[in-house]
């Protein structure tokens, strides 16, 4: 019996490095997620090593590897590179093979990608230079409030109402939080306001037509964001399975399709 061909995708993002290994059935055989740290090369090697160990494979066992993310050009063992935009679009269209709008909320930037029914990218937009509305924004403000990132979703769900955040500047938002605290607002309501603020940054980037598919690490940890976005856009909003692995999974799919 011929061994199953396995393809690797590695996504070195601003915050996390993700690896997905896919087999012939395009199922994820193994994966790894870890902090990117200061060395792209070391993170790449460690994450890939961990995923290979889980799959019981060696590097030579991979037919092809595609790298994506900010560190995509620093992966020595990759055969090709593709942008995150290409990889997220591919992953989302794999699960939702129809006309969709992909929204990737990443650690450092947000992307909105319009994908045709055939899977072609019709257009895309990244957020402007400012990281407001991205994972970095939530990290900053959560730290200010002494709220661990993994509790944001739970806290936001407990809110009786949503506190309105008026600024789109991360630093100004931190000051705004102080004013809300002084006014007696409680943590869950403020946290809900912060998630709502991310949603507002997304909807002002580009019209979100048709079905929306959310990808990226932020939504993987804060699914509440998808529900809030749904209330804004009045369209079905899906969260991609293994949303944080979307870039790596898409890269692995593209690696397989390069045959």
């Amino acid at each position, binding site marked *: 019996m011929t061994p199953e061909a396995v393809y690797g995708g590695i996504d070195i993002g601003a915050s996390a490095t993700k690896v997905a290994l896919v087999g012939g059935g395009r199922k994820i055989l193994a994966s790894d997620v870890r902090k990117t740290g200061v060395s792209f090369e070391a993170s790449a090697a460690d994450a890939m090593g961990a995923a290979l160990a889980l799959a019981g494979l060696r590097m030579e066992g991979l037919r092809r590897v595609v*790298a994506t993310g*900010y560190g995509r*050009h620093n*992966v*020595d*063992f*990759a*055969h*090709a*590179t*593709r*942008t*995150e*935009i*290409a990889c997220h679009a591919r992953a989302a269209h794999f699960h939702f093979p129809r006309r969709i709008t992909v929204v990737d909320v990443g650690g450092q*930037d947000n992307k909105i990608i319009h994908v045709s029914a055939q899977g*072609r*990218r019709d*257009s*895309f*937009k*990244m957020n*402007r*230079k400012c990281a407001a509305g991205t994972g970095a924004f939530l990290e900053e403000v959560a730290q200010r409030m002494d709220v661990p990132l993994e509790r944001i979703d739970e806290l936001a769900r407990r809110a009786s109402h949503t506190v309105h955040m008026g600024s789109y500047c991360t630093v100004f938002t931190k000051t705004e939080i102080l004013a809300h605290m002084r006014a007696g607002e409680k943590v869950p309501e403020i946290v809900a306001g912060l998630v709502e603020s991310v949603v507002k940054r997304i909807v002002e980037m580009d019209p979100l037509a048709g079905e929306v598919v959310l990808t990226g690490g932020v939504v993987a940890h804060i699914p509440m964001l998808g529900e809030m976005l749904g209330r804004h856009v009045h369209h079905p909003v899906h969260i991609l399975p293994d949303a944080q692995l979307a870039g790596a999974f898409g890269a692995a799919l593209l690696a397989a399709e390069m045959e």
Partner: protein
Amino acid sequence: MKSDRPKQTFKKIHASGRMKEIMEAHFRELDEAARTKKQKVAWCTSVGPAELLKGMGFQVFYPENHGAMLGATRTATDLIPLANAIGYSPDICSYLTADIGSYLKGESPISKAYPGLDGPPRPDVLVFNTNQCRDVQDWFNFYGREFKVPVIGIQTHRGVGEITRAHIDSIADQLKAMVPKLEEISGKKLDMEEFKRVVGLSRQCTDLWKEVLEIAAHKPSPLTFFDGTVQMGPAVVMRGEQRAVDYYKLLLAELEQRVDEGVAAVDGEKYRIYWEGMPIWGKLRELSTQFAELEACVLASTYCSSWVFPALDADEPFDSMARAYIELFIVRDEDYKEEYFARQIRHYGIDGMIFHDAKTCPNNSNDRYGMVERISQRFDIPALVIHGDLNDLRCYSEEQARTNIEAYIEQLAEKRGQ
């Protein structure tokens, strides 16, 4: 193993050696005029009344050219804060803030490029035209106060649709009104024959520069936008002079030879891109390398075409200068701009259009009123907005720009089914 991009060899434009010589001569002549007082020195905005000044015997210095030098040498970002500190906002023109910062610090790329020169020559008069923006007036007023010299200028209309006789008369009258003041400063009467001669030379220069730019319509293009930003120097600072005319004849011959021999500016040119907006002066090398590696040739731009003045006519120097300097793209309304892009897209066979949104230059950032969407829908051309600045690299995120450009070229490839 990961390198799936071809290595590009940049092709040197041989004429550039001659351009360096005449640019150096230009700066040395300015310096000599200021030192010896043999000739008066006028500072002039880039699309200001240079022909009138040269026709009246002034040596002409262009602060915007100096601003671009500060950007290209990557010194601007360190100098801008000095101007910010004395009240010139980081949100206004970064040519202005970089140039004033350079003055405050006493550092100029002119002295580094041309040993023995101290920097910009001291002006006897400052002459602006607000056709670029209002900032030029405030910029020149700063130096008027510093050097205690007169500042005179032309106020140009904005958002102009159809150009009427009233527009031309308004600008021509303002040009004529400058003459007595300039005569007083220069100590010489306006010699109409000399003025006409300069306008005639400026027209020849601009016609040749247009030919240089339009040669990029050939497939593959022998010229990139990035080449253009360097090659435009004489058209900006030496129009109205024989040496600029001679230079563009030399350059055109070399580019025509490239066309004859099928030499591409970007090997394996696959995508033809239009650049709308200001150059990002401090990142020209990085951007030209990235586009070339992606086999994309950025080959035409609004910016480089801004020194094409087909209206100039030696027989009607005032009226034709007035028309030339108001029919510019930058002062026109949105409808005119959209039709201008339509012509450029067709003429150059453009696959995609990049809009540079320059933080400190709203007049050259044409993505802000829905133009990107209108153009991309009308021509089925994917468009990309890059957020940055002409000079202030604090406003530019290199990694984001790189990813945007790479994803954009991927999109163009997908559109073609590649």
